[in-house]
């Protein structure tokens, strides 16, 4: 009975002790929170890392590291618009922050704003001339057409061209263009053709830059597997052919078609 009577007193003591310990425990600093968030990001736990960064930025909204980490996480989660906002916040705090300039340049490239992309990369390189990532991206951006208005127009479409180029019946989409993205042939040709041409030209440009950086020389062939179809590319220094097939079509058959159409296309250009 005596023990039972003493129990509440012991409980109160423990509670008081817990309160004292708890009261003395400090909230983690912004740096500690961001360090933890960075570790979580490196482990691929993006959502949890984002929560911690958001909390850290509530306490320290002027943290450049916090906004940079937020931008990195948004990029990892493919949230381009939010990444752009975070990069812009970094630049508002530190106008020549190289990672923010590079990140924003990548967002601009992704959104086909080539002029902005080049400008951001030049700003980064003016401040940090030894910045190989920025230099590599600038090489890509230099070779791209700056705006939609400047894109050249179609010079040949229709049934005759289809027959001449011996386009296979299995082809879902065919694009033939000069290296500068001048479209020479598109089948089918529709409202999204310009988008497809721009995307394919940009893809080839980035791939060429990557092959060059790897010491492998210019792009000649590509295979892009999609969910529904597979796109085969053939290129030389002057032209680029893209054929999309159902992904069930055998690779060897698709490559035969590609070489045949490529031969016809090259003859047309000669």
């Amino acid at each position, binding site marked *: 009975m005596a023990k039972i009577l003493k129990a509440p007193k012991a409980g109160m003591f423990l509670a008081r002790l817990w309160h004292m310990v708890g009261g003395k425990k400090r909230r983690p600093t912004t740096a500690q929170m961001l360090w933890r968030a960075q570790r979580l990001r*490196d482990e*691929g736990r*993006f959502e949890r890392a984002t929560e911690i960064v958001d909390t850290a930025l509530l306490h320290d909204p002027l943290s450049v590291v916090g906004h940079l980490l937020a*931008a*990195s996480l948004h*990029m*990892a989660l*493919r949230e381009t618009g939010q*990444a752009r906002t975070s990069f812009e916040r970094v630049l508002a705090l530190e106008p020549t922050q190289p990672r923010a300039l*590079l*990140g924003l340049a*990548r967002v601009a*490239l*992704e959104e086909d704003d080539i002029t902005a992309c080049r400008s951001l990369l030049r700003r980064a390189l003016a401040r940090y001339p030894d910045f*190989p*990532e920025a*230099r*590599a*991206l600038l090489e*890509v951006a230099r070779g791209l057409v700056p705006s939609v208005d400047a894109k050249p127009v179609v010079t040949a479409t229709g049934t005759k061209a289809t027959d001449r180029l011996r386009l296979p019946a299995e082809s879902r989409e065919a694009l033939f263009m000069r290296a500068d993205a001048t479209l020479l042939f598109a089948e089918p040709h529709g409202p*999204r053709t310009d*988008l*497809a041409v721009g*995307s394919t030209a*940009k*893809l080839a440009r*980035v*791939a060429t*830059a*990557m*092959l060059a*950086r*790897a*010491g*492998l*020389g*210019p*792009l*000649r*062939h*590509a*295979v*892009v*597997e*999609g*969910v*529904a*179809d597979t*796109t085969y590319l053939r290129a030389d220094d002057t032209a680029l052919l893209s054929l*999309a097939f159902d992904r069930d079509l055998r*690779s060897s058959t698709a490559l035969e078609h590609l070489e045949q159409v490529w031969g016809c296309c090259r003859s047309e250009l000669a």
Partner: protein
Amino acid sequence: MSAAAVVVAQPEVGRDLRGVLTALLRLDHIMGGLVVAPDGLLIAADLPHEIQAEPLAALAATLGRELEMRGPRLRRGTFPMAQFASVSGAVFIGSTPVGYIVLLGEPRADWDAIRAALRRAVGTVYRAWAG
């Protein structure tokens, strides 16, 4: 080592991207490779000494993102794997939720086998990170 010998079937293996890359680097005629986050952050790299990893990572992230963007914009769905070849070799790139796996192959490499191995590795990473 043959493509079939690359063991990346267990989900827990797919969480270790460095391990996935190491396994893929054992394929015949692979010169090197890297794993890069979608923001261009280099996660792991094993490249010939004359190739700088950082600019290659920046380009790989840009290329990977561009391939992903072809899906919604061009109604083609996301890409699991792509290959870009020159006369001197090829770059293979696979897309996962946590980043891109890149391999550099020699011209004599069996490209179909490499694509198949990379496709399997990408699938393993997807399964590991889905939970």
